[in-house]
């Protein structure tokens, strides 16, 4: 059974595309045949984060309009064998993305892929709605910050009331909380909402915590999803997220407390 997973948040700039890129790469590395779809029509960016921007020829709107086949529009990822990217259109407007067309594409993708990751645009307009409508599971990306938490709550309300699963009366969309840009130091100082605070407020299961890190910018500069970075806690944290998603619930939650530097490390000036 293939799964449709939406990466959503409501608020912009919290790490949806970063997460979509690393999460889909991680699923593929674990042997799942995976496709990641950019739903941000008019403002596509997943291609840049995945480093395939110069190989984009056709996009999702071309497929919906029947101008090209899915096979022609899918771009094979440069890092993972099992991963394909379906870019958004940069020139069309968001109304070209209709529910019927998207459903047709998803059904066709389900025939050959295990995981279909939908990278949602920010907001709660039609693009974001279309991205989440067909979801079986949802990664709700949240920053430890009041406006992001409030928007996530709004998104959870929409998933529970207006997704296809809700409308058809099926089991509800399985929701996962993913906290990004987390800074344990500031949490300890009482300057930032803690993991527990956010969980208490949003009341959905936690799938992972991604620490605030300079390496996310480095990854996007290079067009390599952060999960591929060497010796980066962001990469480790994303691998843990994928592990938990695949059912390994015993994985301990890392990067949530301030790491005490060892004496030797301090002596050597290691970071």
């Amino acid at each position, binding site marked *: 059974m293939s799964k449709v997973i939406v990466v959503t948040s409501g608020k912009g700039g919290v790490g949806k595309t970063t997460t979509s890129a690393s999460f889909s790469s991680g699923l593929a590395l674990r042997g799942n045949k995976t496709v990641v779809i950019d739903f941000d029509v008019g403002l596509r960016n997943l291609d840049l984060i995945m480093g395939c921007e110069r190989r984009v020829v056709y996009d999702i709107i071309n497929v919906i309009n029947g101008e090209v086949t899915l096979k022609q529009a899918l771009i094979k990822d440069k890092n993972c064998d099992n991963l394909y990217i379906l870019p958004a259109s940069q020139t069309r407007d968001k109304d070209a993305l209709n529910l019927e067309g998207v459903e047709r594409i998803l059904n066709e993708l389900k025939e050959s892929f295990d995981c279909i990751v939908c990278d949602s645009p920010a907001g709660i307009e039609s693009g974001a709605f279309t991205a989440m409508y067909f979801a079986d599971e949802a990664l709700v990306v949240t920053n430890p910050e009041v406006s992001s938490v*409030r928007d996530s*709550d709004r998104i959870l*309300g929409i998933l529970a009331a207006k997704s296809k699963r809700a409308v058809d009366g099926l089991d509800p969309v399985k929701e996962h909380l993913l906290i990004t840009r987390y800074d344990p130091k500031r949490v300890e*100082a*009482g300057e*930032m*909402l*803690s993991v527990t*605070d956010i969980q208490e*407020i949003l009341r959905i299961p936690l799938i992972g915590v991604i620490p605030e890190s300079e390496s996310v910018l480095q990854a996007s500069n290079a067009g390599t999803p952060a999960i591929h970075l060497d010796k980066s806690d962001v990469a480790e944290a994303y691998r843990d997220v994928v592990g938990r998603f695949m059912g390994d619930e015993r994985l301990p939650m890392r990067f949530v407390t301030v790491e005490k530097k060892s004496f030797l490390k301090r002596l050597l000036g290691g970071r």
Partner: protein
Amino acid sequence: MIAGLISYLRGNEKKTAIVAKERLQIILAHERAGRNAPTPDYLPALQEELMVVIAKYIHIDRESINVQLEKHGEYDVLELNITLPDKMRLNR
């Protein structure tokens, strides 16, 4: 550093993370309530018509009738609250 020391000695300043959590809990409780039980658009009309019927028999003013829809778990409860005037006016 001195400012930090002073605020430490005072010890009564609320950490901003706690303020953030409290504010979120209040606003989200409010927004969730609105989301789960949006006021149906027939309520004002219903209130108006009830007013007319009741006014035929009892002398009441607009403020003494109140119609509300509340959510109690699985059930929606339509609450109708009419404050009757005191006996003297009723017998008149």
